């Protein structure tokens, strides 16, 4: 099915996420995040061979899973690990400033990069979300955070209303971005980490301006700025040098396809997005 000269949205997103990883750092992916799991392996396979890759749920270091599984805490994901951490050590590494990057998502993402995976409904609980795992702690402690979401597009319902995933303010702040609900900055709060420096979505990539506000930095080749505006619950500045996102090479997508033969990562994508395809770099 995959056209050998094309790549899918999932593959392109994985590449965008992988690009945010520096070589020589210690990075962690949580559970329930196959796009990120694959992105870490892709980064280590390509530009970041010295990455200390810590797998979510198993805390295996530099594993070589034969294939991606539908759940994270599976021995498959742990095969070939060079060594293992435990839950305490992993979070201590973040709290002591040794974790370089973490990846977080949310049912709601606000303009300052705060995330909500706890509950919808402010006064009254409307929908109980699964919870954020260790995201709250890591959002404060880790040096840098990449936010990702594969469901930015908020298609109008029957009444023409859009339920935004990128919102002005989260109903509940599970993990912190650049400004708390009370308007405090990270430096005022004394967090160890620098906070999110990018949001990768299926429409574009944001960075954050000096005030800590999300700013559109790049677009997918098949997306216009206007589309992003329509699907975002807050106004945002656009970088003067707004670019088109780079696309992965054939070798990269082959790596991804070999690692994820069950296409677990596509479960993060809405069915209508799975049809998008892009030329290889």
């Amino acid at each position: 099915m995959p056209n050998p000269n094309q790549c899918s949205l999932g593959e392109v997103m994985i590449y965008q996420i992988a690009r945010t990883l520096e070589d020589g750092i210690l990075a962690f992916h949580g559970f329930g995040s196959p796009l990120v799991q694959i992105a870490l392996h892709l980064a280590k396979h390509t530009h970041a061979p010295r990455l200390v890759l810590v797998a979510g749920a198993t805390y295996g270091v530099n594993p070589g899973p034969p294939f991606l599984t539908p759940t994270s805490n599976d021995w498959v994901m742990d095969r070939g690990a060079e060594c293992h951490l435990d839950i305490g050590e992993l979070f201590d590494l973040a709290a002591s400033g040794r974790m370089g990057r973490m990846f977080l998502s949310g049912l709601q993402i606000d303009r300052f990069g705060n995330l909500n995976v706890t509950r919808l409904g402010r006064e009254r609980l409307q929908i109980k979300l699964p919870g954020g795992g260790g995201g709250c702690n890591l959002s404060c402690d880790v040096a840098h955070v990449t936010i990702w979401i594969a469901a930015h597009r908020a298609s109008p319902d029957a009444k023409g209303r859009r339920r935004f995933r990128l919102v002005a303010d989260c109903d509940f702040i599970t993990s912190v971005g650049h400004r708390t609900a009370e308007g405090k900055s990270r430096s005022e709060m004394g967090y160890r980490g620098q906070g999110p420096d990018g949001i990768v979505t299926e429409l574009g990539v944001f960075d954050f301006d000096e005030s800590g506000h999300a700013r559109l930095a790049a677009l997918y080749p098949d997306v216009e700025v206007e589309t992003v505006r329509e699907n975002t619950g807050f106004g945002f500045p656009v970088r003067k040098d707004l670019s088109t996102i780079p696309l992965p090479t054939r070798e990269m997508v082959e790596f991804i396809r070999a690692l994820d033969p069950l296409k677990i990562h596509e479960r993060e994508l809405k069915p209508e997005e799975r049809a998008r395809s892009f030329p290889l770099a």
Partner: protein
Amino acid sequence: MNPAIYTQTDKCCGLTSLIAHVRPGDCVVIGGGLSSREPMAALRELVRQAIGNLKLAGSAHGIDVDLLCGAGLVAESAESYVGFEQDFGMAPNYRRACEAGTVAVRDSCCYTLVQQLRAAIAGLPFMPMRSVRGTGFMAMHPEYKTMICPYTGEELLLVPALKPDVAIIHAQYGDAHGNLHIEGPPVADILFAKASKKVIATVEQILPTGQLAEKGVTIPYFYIAALSEVPYGAHPTACYPFYAYDRRHTAEYYRLASESAEAFNGYLQTYVCGCESQTGYLEAIGGVKTLGRLASWRQGVEAWQALYA
């Protein structure tokens, strides 16, 4: 009261007696994580004995917490995640119970939990940490306090010790004395064992103490009040190297749980209350055919992958 130590020579008992160690209203922590090494047989027995009003705390959980919520045994949840990941999505019974207000939502975060357990383990009233301040968890947890650090002048968060009444753990191996050997990621089990007033455990196999010592003891015996040998005690979650995650059974669970509370009662009737014992349960899930399928991961990557296709 100081936590006890347990020094009986033979702590082996049946699942019924094991679960009688849990009392209504207890703060319970559950070993394993997500789809791996959850003490499911013990939890099913908890459902049969209908020991309710439980307060749960934990990090990343799924079917274990969802089952207890679906059986109406949970009064409060301080878990950091309850769901079925990208595999099936949100936890249906958990959601229903939280949204109906029958389960009090007291969500926690992994490191917060770690620090609270560490406080209990070290006999301290609290542990300091830097994170969490500035998030919604502060309003949800009025028991969190802040202090100004006398060394640096910065604001720190204090989280109180969490001393669960009972930790329920499933391990691959144990001995009659109560020593446990866990293979693969221990998740928070070791912290749970040390912080709790007592540990009750199910194991795939009970070994002679010498053999267990050779494998290595993950949790020393004196934390463990009682244990039962319950093969396939983690099903439908994985307990490698014995068996992989039963995705097929979990799909059935998820379908019924998602459909409605009534449909889920059907699940409970078929697989929990309708099975007097683990033997009956293993028959209900398909007997040797199912168990053979779950052991097939050992045949190689292709067979392993086929379990999840």
